[in-house]
């Protein structure tokens, strides 16, 4: 009677299952290492992704938005003449509404950003004056929440200014003080505007606190003679992964001004390269750490499986004497490893997801960092509460990676099992 290979597979599977079940201590030890590793990997990835999303979110709120529309070169020149043509804002709003990603878009904001000078009786300091829509900005920018005195701008404010604490100190200002902001206007003349301090903020980031002033955009338009023109339009989405699609759509819809060189559409990576670099560096740092963790887990699995293989030479010899080929004998060890890997990878990821769910309210890392509340990355103020984030693609990556580690860890012991000296392995030892 010729045996069918599938029957050998069935027997190999049965043997592998029996070995796992009847060597419970060994199985539990190996499984525990793998499950803990998988849970740590899942949670660490979720925490890392959540952290990066937080960085991006904070960065785009303070900065350019997930997608920025500007005149090409404005980022470098910062000149008032590099304004977006009238009607661009309307075009962007229409394009966003018709976008496939419309349900992902949360806000569209606009600013008139000017580099100028702030002067008071005590002196003058360079300043970055942002003409903003107070209502939109209050709902978006984290700066309005960082008020230390007074209040943020209101819809009907006219000659009001919301000033960074560093600049307030440098110009010896206080709440209610008057200061003059000066910059080149639309006619290339130097123009000044008297404003009154209605609020003082402290973000903890010197680059912001020492130079930024928010004024109502209507006031800025009158002061500089730019009317309702803007220098920056930002589009916010609820998840940074929606950016590439939105970017393609906006570039298509704004084809005419882009073609004329009057506008450029950029994703946050392009608009804030230092933030993108920081995310990448942190991501690869995390991959390196997790790689090291899994090399350790992999070696502990190899060690446990190999030790068991070394103790099972007689068993493998018997299997070959009874009719298994060396390759099939190695398969018993490989199948044991694969079975354990599949189950442990799923359990490990499950435990990690449970941990993520349990901490879905967020983790306040300022407590871990010794009560440090003013956290920043590349000049971007970061909310210290990190919400771990999991995506199906990430889960698949983690499962795939764990399977790979499990398979690689089982191959060497399987090869050892397949290459034993059968007659030596079955010798009787007195």
């Amino acid at each position: 009677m010729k045996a069918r290979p599938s029957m050998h597979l069935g027997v190999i599977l049965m043997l592998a299952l029996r070995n796992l079940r009847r060597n419970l201590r060994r199985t539990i030890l190996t499984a525990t290492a793998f499950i803990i590793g998988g849970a740590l990997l899942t949670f660490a990835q979720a925490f890392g992704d959540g952290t990066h999303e937080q960085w991006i979110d904070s960065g785009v709120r303070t900065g350019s938005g997930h997608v920025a529309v500007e005149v090409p070169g404005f980022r470098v020149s910062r000149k008032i003449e590099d304004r977006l043509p009238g009607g661009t804002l309307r075009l962007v709003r229409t394009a966003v509404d018709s976008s496939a990603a419309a349900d992902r878009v949360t806000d569209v904001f606009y600013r008139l950003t000017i580099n100028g000078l702030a002067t008071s009786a005590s002196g003058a300091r360079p300043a970055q004056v942002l003409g903003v829509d107070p209502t939109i900005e209050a709902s978006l920018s984290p700066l309005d929440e960082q008020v230390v005195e007074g209040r943020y701008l209101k819809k009907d404010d006219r000659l009001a200014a919301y000033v960074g604490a560093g600049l307030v100190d440098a110009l010896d200002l206080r709440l209610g003080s008057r200061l003059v902001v000066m910059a080149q206007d639309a006619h290339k003349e130097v123009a000044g505007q008297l404003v009154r301090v209605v609020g003082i903020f402290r973000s903890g980031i010197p680059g912001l606190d020492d130079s930024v002033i928010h004024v109502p955009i209507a006031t800025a338009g009158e002061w500089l003679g730019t009317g309702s023109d803007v220098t920056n339009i930002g589009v916010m989405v609820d998840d940074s992964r929606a950016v590439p699609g939105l970017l393609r759509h906006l570039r298509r819809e704004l084809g005419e001004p882009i073609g004329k060189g009057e506008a450029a559409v950029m994703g946050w990576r392009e608009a804030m390269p230092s933030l993108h670099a920081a995310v990448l560096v942190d991501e690869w740092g995390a991959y390196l750490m997790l790689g090291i963790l899994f090399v350790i887990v992999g070696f502990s699995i190899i060690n446990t499986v190999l030790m068991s293989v070394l103790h099972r030479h007689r068993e493998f010899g018997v299997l070959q004497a009874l009719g298994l080929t060396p390759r099939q004998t190695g398969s018993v060890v490989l199948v044991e490893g694969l079975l354990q890997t599949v189950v442990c990878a799923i359990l490990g990821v499950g435990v990690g997801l449970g941990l993520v769910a349990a901490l879905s309210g967020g983790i306040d890392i300022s407590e871990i960092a010794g009560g440090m509340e003013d956290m920043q990355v590349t000049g971007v103020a970061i909310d210290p509460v990190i919400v771990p984030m999991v995506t199906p693609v990430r889960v698949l990556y983690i499962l795939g990676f764990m399977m790979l580690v499990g398979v690689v860890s089982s191959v060497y012991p399987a090869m050892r099992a397949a290459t034993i000296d059968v007659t030596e392995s079955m010798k009787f030892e007195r």
Partner: protein
Amino acid sequence: MSESNGYAVRTAGVWKIFQQEAEEVQAVRDVSLTIGRGEFTALAGPSGSGKTTLLNLIGGLTRPTRGEIWVAGSELGALSNRELAQLRLEQVGFVFQAYNLLPVLTALENAEFPMLLQGVPAAERSERIRELFDRTGMTGLEDRRPGKLSGGQQQRVAVVRAVASQPALVLADEPTANLDSHASEALLDMMAELNRELGVTFVFATHDGHVMERSRRLVRMVDGAIDSDETRS
């Protein structure tokens, strides 16, 4: 490749030489031997005489340095590892001095293991094992794992495993060495009965005088070579 099927085993000028460090050890020297079907043969000799190595060569567990070995009509040297494994599965049963049962399987699972590999249907497996366990006094111990069986019981399971798959040949290496005289006698009775009733060919490697007395053919080996070959009536 296929020769006459009138015998179970035939060796012609078989040598097995091991290299131990700088020294060459001739474990089997120019052995030519024919064992007919249904024989009950003992390979006897002192330790190191080459009887276990010859048994391993016949079972295809190791390959000869020189010479040819035929088992059930197949010349082992012409077979690939896979074909050799298939031949062991279908034609050869092993009984070892150390029993060598699979520790994670029960007595019943151990006994039916070669039949599982052969793809014997469950009902037939069950029938054969039930009958053999009955013959060998193992009924009631089917669900015990090897660690819960005595040496004699383990060896009986090993014999059942060796014969249940209905091989042409059973190779038994010192099967009684770890058994007391009572268990040893019972085991020999059982194997003699299986030999007589089922026509299974048994070849023992032994230095147990009792096994030699019970064998119908006694091949004595000294220093790897056949010293004498005696057939009894």
